Structure formats: structure tokens, C-alpha cells
């Protein structure tokens, strides 16, 4: 047929052709460099270590303060304990005197050791019921 035909639409590629299909990998290097990362890491670690060490020093000073408070209290507490022990020893001597008063040649409060230093007693018999027993 040679009659002029209607123009029809065909599914043709766009003008200039299709765009290129990306088939190659595309992972660009971005962000901080290795050196920068290492430097940042070092900085954070150093910051943490610095404050940790400062904290350790401060804890040492706190401990020093606590210890000195206790040191200053030692004489007073020791004096109290000394008086208590002296009382116990006196009571023990009194009991010994009463118990051994009929034994000839018995020296009350005689040292049982061959040394001059004070030896704390192993056993303290210091009870009122022993005072009144003899």
C-alpha cells in the first residue's frame, strides 16, 4: 500500500543512547587516614591514662590523711589500754597473793622469764570471783 501511514511509536533507545551500566566496584577511600586514626586513638588513651593516674595519686593522699588521723589517736588509745592492762595485772597479783599466802618461800609477782623486757601474760586470771575465792 503506498498511502501515507500514521506515524507510530516504537520503543527506541533514548537520544544519545543508554547510560553506561556500572559493573565495576566503586568503594572510594574516605574518612580519616590511618595515621589520623592512630593519633586520635592515642590521644583518647592518653587522656584516660592521665586522669587514671591523677585519681591514683589522689587516692594515695586520701589514704595518707586517713592513716595520719589514726596515728594521732594512737597515744590516747594506747594509754587507755595500758591502764586497763595495769588494772588486770594488779588484780592478778592480788589473787596470787591471796592464793599463795600460806606457801613458804613464794615471791608474789616474780618474773618467770630470764629477760628484762616486759612479756605480756599468756593467761590473765582477772575476775572478781577469784578475788573472793581465797
Amino acid at each position, binding site marked *: 500500500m503506498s498511502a501515507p501511514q500514521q506515524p507510530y511509536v516504537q520503543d527506541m533507545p533514548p537520544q544519545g543512547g543508554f547510560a553506561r551500566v556500572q559493573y565495576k566496584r566503586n568503594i572510594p577511600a574516605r574518612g580519616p587516614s590511618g595515621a589520623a586514626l592512630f593519633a586520635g586513638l592515642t590521644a583518647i588513651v592518653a587522656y584516660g591514662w592521665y586522669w587514671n593516674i*591523677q*585519681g591514683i595519686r589522689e587516692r594515695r593522699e586520701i589514704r595518707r*590523711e*586517713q592513716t595520719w588521723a589514726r596515728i*594521732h589517736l594512737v597515744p590516747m588509745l*594506747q594509754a587507755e*589500754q595500758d591502764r586497763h592492762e*595495769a588494772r588486770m595485772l*594488779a588484780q592478778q597479783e592480788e589473787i596470787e597473793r591471796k592464793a599463795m599466802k600460806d606457801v613458804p618461800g613464794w615471791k608474789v609477782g616474780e618474773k618467770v622469764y630470764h629477760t628484762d623486757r*616486759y612479756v605480756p601474760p599468756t593467761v590473765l586470771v582477772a575476775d572478781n570471783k577469784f578475788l573472793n575465792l581465797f
Partner: protein
Amino acid sequence: MSNPDNTPLFSRGTYTQPGASFPEVGASSAPLTSAAFFIGAFCKEYNEDFMLCKAENADPRHCLKEGRKVTRCTIDLLAKLKANCGDQFKAHWTCLDNKNHELNRCRAEERAFNQCVFDKLGLSKHIPDTPKGEEPIHLKSRPIFDY
């Protein structure tokens, strides 16, 4: 409350030689901890005498005289603290009672108490052997362990 005679509880009922009773300090641990540095400053000579005497001979009967002086000095100081700075003293040792006797947890009350004691009694707290060039822990303005 439970100790009206102000005698140490462990000596209650034990032998007392006639005419030899002696008033003891009677304070509990919190007021003593609170006043420790002031006891160290105020009673320094008596404390040193006593410790030197103990170093000679460990017998308890050897150092009774120096021990009595130490106790008298401590009683004297505690009475002075109570009379002059009673409120701040009580606030500080009450705080210590609640904070496990950790001195670094009661800095606010301690500051007020130390200031009052310095003003009224002229005693100040000094921690020996603090490394030079550092401010002492109780005076540090921005401590790390800040309760």
C-alpha cells in the same frame, strides 16, 4: 546513754585499786576521728613523750604517768572543741558516722569545722609528708573523688 559513768566499757567491773580511779576520755570513734588532727596538734608534746616512754619499755605500768597526761590533754581539747565549735563539730562527726568514717566524704562540714577551730582556738590541720608542690587533699578545690 549506755555509759553514764564515762568509763571504758571493757574495764567495767574489773579491779580498781582503792583511790586510783581516773576519768577516761569517753568519746566514741566519730568525734575522735573528727578531732584527730587537732589532738595531734594540741597534744603533740604529751603524745611524743608517751610514745618515747613506750619505746623504752613496753610494760603498761611503766608509762602510766605519761599516759595520764595524754588522756588529760585529750579530754581538755575535746571539751574546748565542744564549747567553742560545738555545732560544727557535731555536724562533722555525724556526717562521718554516716559515711563510714571516710574523711574525704565530708569535706563541706570539715571546712566549716576547721575554719571555726582556726578562728577560735588557733589550731589548723596539717598532714605531714604531703609531697611538696601539691595542695593538701583536704584543701584541694576540685578533687577527683568529690562526694
